[in-house]
């Protein structure tokens, strides 16, 4: 297929897309991303289809990806002829009948669970979807198609300007594309923030008969799902980005290295690749140019370290996923010894936007050094969790309180950058989110995980959790990472169990610095970050664990006893029902009793108590200090 025939296809696609917008039949959009499915979108879809079937109603059902506010899933949009698309949240199969009956049979706008509509201004008392507090402050560039289009239908992507950027790139010499990327100020979204154009230039200028492009979709950070959602919602954006990158660096073969734990994303990629092949967007002489390129999906077997580029290359080569020392950098000698560029999913998906709308447009967003937007997965103890995209430079406070809607309980910290990042406390809430400022604060941008922590979360326990993760995921090659992280975990274990000594703080810091300074790859070099940053900003909490043997958040089991505050207890019996060991007894409407000897500190009662009657607040245990270990 050449450019002209693609143009014809695009026109067809556009008319199909317009036809969908102005469909004479009702159209029902349902978010079928992994988050939607987890929230029960599958059942909702079955209920919708069942309803349409039994009533004999004619409506089109379009399965879309995740649109962002994951806490509202399952999200269902209904579009009636002549009316804008209206979005509903937390749809249950039971509500489907009510909702659709109101729309399809009575022609009335169903008012419950409504989030917003996708039209202009207010519509019938329904606000615009983009005026929703979670979306209002966002700038959706990479995510512009997510949740809007059917990811399995290449026409939807084409109709919204898909592959136009590729066409433009193929008509330009490679150095002009490189220049565009340079002027856009795009930096690698995988975490390190290395200027994308610089890496590309090195690769392109290394003489070789073959070059490779790898899309790194081995998203492994706990609590991070930006790449998954993006691929599930808009696979073609990533793949078009790959084509742009490949044509610029002169690669002939591309790989998408994706975790096998993302089956839906893999399925979406596969169907997208098949559609591309059909249109001649892969293979020899793409769009009639000299550019030949093909993409293979390589499923990773679940090792976190394979997200590190040299380990990823080893894994594709069929070897053990184990990083090697650099230099040579992959851009010079990577996969099979050939120059290789490894870009993150988000970096690649940004490219079509930059090329299509120009570098100047893109670089208006963001700060002096960090241009553009960044997607984050906002999770933890915020009211509104989900996938967001904001321009660089937005403060943590805006993200957490404006977009995330704040916390239910008191804010304590935010963990940025996943297990490689750090815990930042309240004093950093006004820190702008960009590479430099986060690094200055002792954390990293990382791939974009934001985990919000409230006062019910123990900082020591959180640090221990992340360290446990990194030590288990260390490849075992270099000593500081393999052995050092294990000792860090041991010391933290001791502190959480009440065996801590004051010297432990010193040990953690010394060991942490040694691991940071001497590890082979990024995993080890950043593994102590959660400990070091929380030691820096929450030293008091460590000390109270060590000296007072007290866990303020009432998380560390060995340091707390549960007791019922009689004055507050209303005798509602909820805790009696959840207690697995029968430690809580008491007649209804009278303060209950908790038998400490039976209590296994499972925290169930604490979580369920509505009246703050069960004080998890650590009680000082005087004898613990003398306990011998």
């Amino acid at each position: 297929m050449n450019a002209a025939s693609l143009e014809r296809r695009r026109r067809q696609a556009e008319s199909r897309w317009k036809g969908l917008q102005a469909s004479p039949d009702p159209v029902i959009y349902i978010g079928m991303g992994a988050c939607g499915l987890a929230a029960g979108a599958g059942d909702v879809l079955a209920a919708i289809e069942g309803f349409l079937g039994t009533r004999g109603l004619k409506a089109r059902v379009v399965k879309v990806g995740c649109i962002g506010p994951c806490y509202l899933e399952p999200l269902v949009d209904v579009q009636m002829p002549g009316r804008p698309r209206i979005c509903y949240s937390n749809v249950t199969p039971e509500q489907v009948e009510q909702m659709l009956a109101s729309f399809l049979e009575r022609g009335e706008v169903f008012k419950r669970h409504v989030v917003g509509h996708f039209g202009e201004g207010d519509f019938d008392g329904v606000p615009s979807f983009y005026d929703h507090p979670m979306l209002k402050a966002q700038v959706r560039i990479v995510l512009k198609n997510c949740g809007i289009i059917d990811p399995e239908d290449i026409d939807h992507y084409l109709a919204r300007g898909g592959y136009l950027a590729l066409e433009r790139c193929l008509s330009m010499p490679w150095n002009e594309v490189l220049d565009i990327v340079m002027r856009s100020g795009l930096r690698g979204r995988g975490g390190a923030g290395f200027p994308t154009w610089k890496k590309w230039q090195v690769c392109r200028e290394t003489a070789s008969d073959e070059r490779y492009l790898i899309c790194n979709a081995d998203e492994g950070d706990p609590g991070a799902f930006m790449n998954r959602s993006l691929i599930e919602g808009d696979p073609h954006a990533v793949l078009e980005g790959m084509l742009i990158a490949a044509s610029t660096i002169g690669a002939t073969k591309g790989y998408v290295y994706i975790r096998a734990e993302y089956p839906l994303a893999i399925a979406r990629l596969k169907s997208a690749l098949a559609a591309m092949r059909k249109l001649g967007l892969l293979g020899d002489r793409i769009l009639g140019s000299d550019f030949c390129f093909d993409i293979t999906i390589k499923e990773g077997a679940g090792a976190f370290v394979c997200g590190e580029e040299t380990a990823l290359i080893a894994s594709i080569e069929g070897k053990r996923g184990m990083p090697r020392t650099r230099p040579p950098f992959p851009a010079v000698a990577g996969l099979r010894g050939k120059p290789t560029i490894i870009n993150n999913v988000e970096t690649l998906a940004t490219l079509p936007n930059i090329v299509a709308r120009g570098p100047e447009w893109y670089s208006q967003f963001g700060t002096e050094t960090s241009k553009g937007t960044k997607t984050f997965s906002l999770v933890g103890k915020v009211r509104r969790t989900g996938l967001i995209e904001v321009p660089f430079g937005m403060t943590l406070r805006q993200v957490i309180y404006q977009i995330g809607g704040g916390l239910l309980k008191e804010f304590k910290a935010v963990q940025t950058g996943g297990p490689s990042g750090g815990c930042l406390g309240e004093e950093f809430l006004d820190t702008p989110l960009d590479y430099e400022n986060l690094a200055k604060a002792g954390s990293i941008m990382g791939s974009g995980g934001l985990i919000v922590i409230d006062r019910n979360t123990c900082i020591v326990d959180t640090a221990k959790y992340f360290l446990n993760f990194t030590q288990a995921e260390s490849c075992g090659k270099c000593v500081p990472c393999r052995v050092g992280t294990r000792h860090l975990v041991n010391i933290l274990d001791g502190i959480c169990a009440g065996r801590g000594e004051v010297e432990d703080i010193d040990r953690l810091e010394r060991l942490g610095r040694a691991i940071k300074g001497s590890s082979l790859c990024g995993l080890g070099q950043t593994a102590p970050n959660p400990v070091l940053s929380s030691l820096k900003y929450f030293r008091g909490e460590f000390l109270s664990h060590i000296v007072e043997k007290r866990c303020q958040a009432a998380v560390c089991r060995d340091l707390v006893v549960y007791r019922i505050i009689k004055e507050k207890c209303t005798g509602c019996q909820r805790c009696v029902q959840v207690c697995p060991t029968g430690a809580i007894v008491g007649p209804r409407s009278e303060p209950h009793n908790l038998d400490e000897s039976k209590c296994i500190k499972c925290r169930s009662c604490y979580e369920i108590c509505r009246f703050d009657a069960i004080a998890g607040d650590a009680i000082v245990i005087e004898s613990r200090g003398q306990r011998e270990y």
Partner: protein
Amino acid sequence: MSTELLSAKGARALTMEIDHRPVSFPEGVSVLRAAELGGIYIPSLCSHKELSAFGGCRLCTVEIEGMRGYPLACSTLAQEGMKVLTDTVALREMRQEILQLILSEHPSSCLVCEERDDCRRSQYTIRKAGVSTGCRNCPNDGQCELQEVVERVGVTAVSYPVIYRGLEAEHDDPFFDRDYNICILCGRCVRMCAEVRGTSVLAFNHRGPRTLIGPAFGRNHVEAGCEFCGACVSVCPTGTLADKSSKWDGKPDGCVTSTCPFCSLGCQVEMFTKDGRLSRVAGSLDSEINDGQLCVRGRFCMPETSHHHDRAKKPMLRKGKYFREVDWDEALTEVATRLKGVAADEVLMAVSGDLTNEGLFAAQQFARECLGTENVDSTARAYLPGGADFWTRLFALPISMKAVAQADSVVVAGLDSRFYFSVAGVQVRRAVRRGASLVAVDSCESNLACAAHHWLRPHAGTEAKVLAAVVRGLVEEGASADPELIRDSGVKGVALAEAVRALAPGTDLAIVIGPRIFECEGANDLLTVLTSLASREGVTIVPLFHGANTRGALELCVLSGPPSERSGASTGRVSLEGVRSGLAKPKVIYLVGESPFFERPDCEFVIAQDLYLPPFEVDAFLPAASFLETEGTLTNIEGRVQRMERIEDLPDGVVHGRVRPDWSIFARLAEKLGYSGMDYADAGAVRAEIHRRFPGFPSAPDRAPRRLAPPSGLAGEKPRHGPDGAKGFVLVGEHAGFRHRGIDLTAVVEGLSDLKLEEGLRMNPHDMEELGIAAGGLVEVSVDGTTVSLAARPDPECPGGAAFFFHVEASGGLSHRHSLRPLYGLNARPLRVQLSVAGSASTRRGGGRPQRGRKNAVSSEDEGNHVSRG
């Protein structure tokens, strides 16, 4: 690729500054190596001169001007004008911290124990009750690299608790034990196995703190295809991997460089001794032949072969129905009397090709001059198919093991280097790692064929023709090979031309030829083309053959008379062949390091002179000194006359026996017989005599390779035929190399039998299925009217239509193989035979359709038997 290898050719000398001292180094080496060359110590546990940089131990961090942070010396390329600091306060602190981490994973009481200085002394207290003082939990104590690094970096206490893995030490596999509790995961063994040996048996398993070294998927080493070359043991910096036999010997107190006595490559070995006895063996770093590498025999079999409790170390005589230990004088007198009592042509002397040059010379001198008989024979004759002249011509070609590793183009034919000629295989792989193109000609799926870029896979028995065609293609550059020549080999002309094209650009060419090839039809033709190729500059040809000193036996006229007498001399001589077939009946048979019979041959008096008693009755036994107990020289394949040192000098007596060097036994016998020409005081005197008789042979050990003068004319060359007819299976005899003198090493060295290399028939599993033979089932082999049944093993490496019979040219320890006698009598040359399931009369055709259903192989219909890789 190792920086060492990269720098081997055409390297420029550069200079840099390390610790404010100028250091010069060749281009392409790492900072670590440059510092080493400049005599500056940088601690490191995972780097090794032959292996790629790993960067796992993190000890070799240095500071380099203009570089950020602390780069690793092992993985940073040394560059002109670099300024490196190796010992700053920051580096020292970091190293101490890392070393403490290593020690926290490595039970290390011996390194930091408060009592360690007094510990040794108090261990020797004499007490009434057995008291164990001192911890002995590491076999490498005193030889451990970690200990040395701890000493130099200066760690005196470990501030972290010890993480003990609590694994059970592994003792199941032969030759070496593994205790992964003390492994520091430096990965040297893994890289050695993969990079140098090309075996990749070892791998990192699991991840994080559970990371462990071992064969993948929980297999044991035998199952994983381990060659037991011991290279991993040699590079292990700790006591994790340790020889079974010498594990608890402690630190050796002596080390002598000597020559391996087991095959014709003549690898140089470091013999480590403890209290005057050989403790263990390691490859010498001598770059001429093996460069640190060995095979299972050289690495592990020496101590057991010489120290085995079955060794016969005292002279014995048959007296009536008793076979008794006697003193030397009595034994020699009796033997001399018997030899005197028969006519010269009624004596047959069989001399093993594993003897030293001195032993071989003295043996033939004793027979020819003292006894006056030409009846000298050797099983080594079977190792040189084609005869003495043919091999003299081969030995006139340029042969160099070192050149193989440095070649740009390599052809390897009929060689599986896992257990035989391993070092040759390692050299081929070294060349490939440096970028050489490799062409394999092999009917079997050998390890080298699997590593080749082009694999020509002819039918069994036609390999020589195909190899000759390849060589001819190289000689006549550009000329396309005549497809007629290889028509019946199954190899397509296109594939052949492609292989030749891949080889042609190389300036340095190496051709390594396995022993099987010379048995094949077309070997004479092959010699002709090899000879014309050898006139080119930069060509090396390595014609491999079995036996440790077979070339010495050829040069010293043990296999046949002097060249002037060769023609016609063999007629009328009594030979081993004659005795075995019953045609010749000598009265006295004198076996020197030989046991070529399964039962006592029919004669009056049998004398055996060897390390072990033969498996049949003899009348006199003369205990010979083993390779450890005598000094001597061995001639290797390249013609180097290499010294084999006397390692053990133990007093004669009840415990250590009364062994004598072979030459000394002959000298004393000659004296008893009244012959004065053999009055040798020591081995040196024998060498002087050899040099007098054979001026081309050096008078002292001389490691210079020698090329022989090719004999004129083609007389004496036996033409070799291909297998007759087109029906039936091709039976390919293959000498197994596990022989030393008269014994099969498998019978002596316990570990070798675990490798399941025992002789027998190996066949393609597909063929076996077609014939209806179960694995290990009996097969009847009918050849020339005799039928032998033996067990067949399915071996997917074997080509279809062929059966490979491995056998050792010695019956020592082989009484259970009695029934195979008819097959032993056959030459090793490929034959057509009929195979059938034992007990059934139906024989089925096998030949003609090889490689059915084989992995890797392409069906012969569409691409010929050519598999291209790379």
